[in-house]
């Protein structure tokens, strides 16, 4: 299945400068593994212990995966996945 993945600037060094890549996966966990196969190192950037890192937001189309089924969120042909760093801070 072809899934389009939008890659944020800090990870584009791993994707040879590409801001969007195609991938085949049935859920987010598989997507991370598939990306790692094509772009070694990206898995560690995205996840820790099999979970998507805190302060990294993933969206399937317009849905935040935390409010769907997290790493088990199902993907289908034509879906678009966006990887977006959270915006946070504090004094």
């Amino acid at each position: 299945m072809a899934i389009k993945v939008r890659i944020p600037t800090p990870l584009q060094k791993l994707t040879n400068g590409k801001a969007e890549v195609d991938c085949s996966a049935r859920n987010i966990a598989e997507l991370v593994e598939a990306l790692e196969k094509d772009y070694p190192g990206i898995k560690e950037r995205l996840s820790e212990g099999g979970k998507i890192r805190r302060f990294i937001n993933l969206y399937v189309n317009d849905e935040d995966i935390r409010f769907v089924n997290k790493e088990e969120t199902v993907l289908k042909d034509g879906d678009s996945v966006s990887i977006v760093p959270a915006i946070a801070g504090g004094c």
Partner: protein
Amino acid sequence: MLTIRKGDLRTIIDHCIAGLPNEACGILAGQDKRVERVYPMRNAKAGPASYEMDAEEQFRVMKDIRQKGLAMIGIFHSHPSGRAYPSGIDVEKAYWPGTELPNYPDVVYVIVSLMDRADPVVKGFWIKDEAVREVPLTVLS
């Protein structure tokens, strides 16, 4: 340098004052380092010393900015009782977790100090290349 209209600066300050005693936050959209639109955002981790943009609102606004042909050029937040300078947590959160890669390398971080509520101090900064550098703000009346 970041250029901003006086009215947009007022919008930022008003949102920060409305958020007291907690920190407030928002996004600045524009072109060529000139702010065209201010997006006041919800602080999903509201506290007097913390902010985190609501993830869904953040995504929606970033999409809206792209659809308008603009770019995200600034991120603002308040320091209710701190100075207008990035804190250690502000710097840490500006980078991809565990790396020295800035999350948003083309964005100016704008900080509003409300230590003196009658006279807020607003300053802009680059947070990248393992350094914090002030970016002059030019206010258009």
